[in-house]
């Protein structure tokens, strides 16, 4: 125990001496947590629309003004020809082109059916899909409100209202705001980056500078050494986590619905697992660059597979299996459940088991892999 005390003393001294890293550890995640979620908004709004109206009839005017007032679209130009409008898509100022053919009104009244052309910039798949379907909805609505339709259908009632009345409700987040979903996950991500990168750099630094030899010749046990490296970062991680929760509360007004101590319990186990992972990388690497790149490689996978940006459910089975094998997935899931829905321990006990396993395996591997002989 006394030996461990000495190692801790040394580690803390080292950490507190490097003021720039110390500042980075606390300031960077706090600042990023304040900034990043503001930028993460998947909502598709303000779709830029270019209109080519060859008809200039009262119907086409009505359709255009209906689209303009729907709130989804910003009509940015009325072009004379399709190729002119296409240029707008090419240089990125417009997302959708709607082309109304000549004699649009005439055909509609005479034939009862009239097509209009919509061209969507489909490189951004989500935006294209949503933009296209908004436009379809507006046009369908326009159809059912067409004067001739109402005139020709005196009973009128069945067309204008749907027979099945659907009531929706979004629980836990009535307005469907993204911040509730994103902020807790970003906090986990930042914690992961801080803990993972710092731990990954730590032992390898001693190797590179050569000071590890001095430790290797002492009677310090392997587990004492790893534990000595782990505890200071664990404390830093807990402080960063608390700062993050504070930011959630003060900046975003997100107050955890669930039990705070349960949240901390998970954070504590998660940090042990994560730091074990970082130290493991560190014991494998020979230089800081190497270590950082390996850590970055895994961090990238963690970030993309964890369900932070896209839901895990939509992934194919093999990807879901990988996702289950990354600790970040479980902690993000738990964070969202506890913070937003107030889940209790019984709801998340499986996740807890996962995290405990990760913590045990990764740390014992790191201890086992640390060699006192070079």
């Amino acid at each position, binding site marked *: 125990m006394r030996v461990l005390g000495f190692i801790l003393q040394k580690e803390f001294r080292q950490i507190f001496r490097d003021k720039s890293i110390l500042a980075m550890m606390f300031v960077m995640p706090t600042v990023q947590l304040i900034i990043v979620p503001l930028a993460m908004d998947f909502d598709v709004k303000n779709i830029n629309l270019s209109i080519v109206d060859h008809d200039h009839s009262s119907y086409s005017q009505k359709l255009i003004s209906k689209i303009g007032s729907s709130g989804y679209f910003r009509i940015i130009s009325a072009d004379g020809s399709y190729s002119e409008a296409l240029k707008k898509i090419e240089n990125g100022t417009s997302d959708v082109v709607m082309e109304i053919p000549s004699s649009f009104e005439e055909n509609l009244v005479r034939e009862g059916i009239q097509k209009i052309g919509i061209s969507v*910039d489909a490189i951004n798949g989500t935006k294209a899909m949503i933009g296209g379907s908004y436009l379809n909805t507006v046009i369908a609505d326009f159809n059912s409100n067409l004067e001739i339709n109402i005139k020709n259908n005196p009973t009128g009632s069945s067309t204008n209202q749907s027979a099945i009345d659907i009531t929706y409700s979004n629980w836990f987040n009535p307005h469907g705001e993204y911040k509730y*979903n994103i902020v807790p996950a970003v906090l986990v991500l930042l914690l992961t980056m801080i803990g993972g990168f710092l731990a990954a750099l730590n032992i390898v630094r001693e190797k590179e500078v050569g000071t590890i030899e001095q430790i290797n010749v002492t009677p310090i046990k392997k587990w004492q050494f790893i534990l000595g490296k782990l505890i200071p970062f664990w404390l830093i991680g807990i402080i960063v986590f608390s700062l993050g929760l504070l930011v959630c509360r003060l900046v975003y007004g997100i107050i955890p619905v669930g039990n705070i101590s349960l949240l901390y319990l998970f954070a504590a186990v998660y940090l042990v697992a994560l730091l074990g992972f970082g130290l493991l990388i560190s014991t494998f690497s020979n230089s*800081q660059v190497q270590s950082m790149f390996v850590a970055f490689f895994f961090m990238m*996978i963690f970030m993309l597979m964890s369900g932070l940006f896209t839901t895990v459910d939509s992934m194919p089975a093999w990807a879901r299996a990988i996702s289950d094998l990354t600790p970040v997935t479980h902690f993000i899931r738990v964070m969202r459940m506890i913070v937003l829905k107030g889940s209790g321990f019984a709801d998340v006990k499986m996740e807890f088991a996962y995290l405990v396993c990760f913590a045990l395996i990764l740390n014992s591997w790191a201890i086992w892999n640390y060699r006192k002989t070079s």
Partner: protein
Amino acid sequence: MKQLFVFIRKEFYHVFRDKRTLLIMFGLPVVQIVLFGFALTSEVKNAQILISDNAKDINSEQLIAKMKASTYFTVDETPISNNDIEKEFRKGNIKCVVVFPANFGNDLQHNGKAQLQIVADGSDPNTAKTMINYLTAIISDYQQQISPAATLPYLIIPETRMLYNEEGNGSLNFIPGVMALILMIVCTALTSVSIVKEKELGTMEILLVSPFKPVLVLISKAVPYLVLSLANFTLILILAVFALHVEIKGNIFLLFAESTLFIITCLSFGLLISNTTSSQQTALLLSMMGMMLPTMIFTGFMFPLENMPLIFRIISHVVPARWYYIIIKSVMLKGLGFGYVWKETLILIGITIILLGIALKNFKIRLS
């Protein structure tokens, strides 16, 4: 000139000896392309919904069969009381609950109007919104089916054409984004440690007392990474074409020229970090942890830039990856020529010159 080559060779040795870093440098794009191409999708699939059918009549059963047939969700059918919904959501598996009231079919057939309740777990707004949209579409489809009289005599039919991406390839948008992200992080991080490492290990002194011009030290540091990054870029392109079947529509030389320019921008930024920091650790933390999220966000390939607050849109103008992303998207996916991207190219050149200028100014040829 000969001296420069010697030094460039030295730097190449440094790079090639570190096999693991090299492996990661080339492994990273492979993994990312595979993930983005095959695993990540912004669509919602296989979401679990729970249907609570309190009616159990023909109409509700028909509608449920329709929902079950959809590939978007996996349906679980257990009657649930309204109070238990929250409990289910807390467990986290069920994303959405559909509740049929007790006399659903009866109401529908006799009153011509029935109620249906959809409760979604809003803690994931994206899934919630998409599920509600899917369900609504299925329900209105069913309505059309049971009362065909509701079709309108006069119809405007929109014909939608997907430009540049007829098959609706969801990963198309990500490819230029991944390119920008990987080049940015890899180039910046590798260059940022190169000088600081010599400082930390003390070998910088040897370089500085040699008759070799200090500026050439910078150049010889940058050249190997330029070459490696170009190789990396080629690898990503090959993967995109052969693994993801993305067609390169524009001029490939233009693509390479623009990428070289972007790589030089990143290298300058790396040199700047290298010249202003004093330890590898700080340099690495800055260039990786500091840059990863901002690059990802301000490039605009994941989150639409126009949704961001004004100040962020202003900030995004100084992020080089953003301009590179626009260029690559135009040239590679839309097949446009230089005439369309000269503005972005000029901006990139401008950023590069400024970064290089600051980097050179901060390059100290005397040790403190």
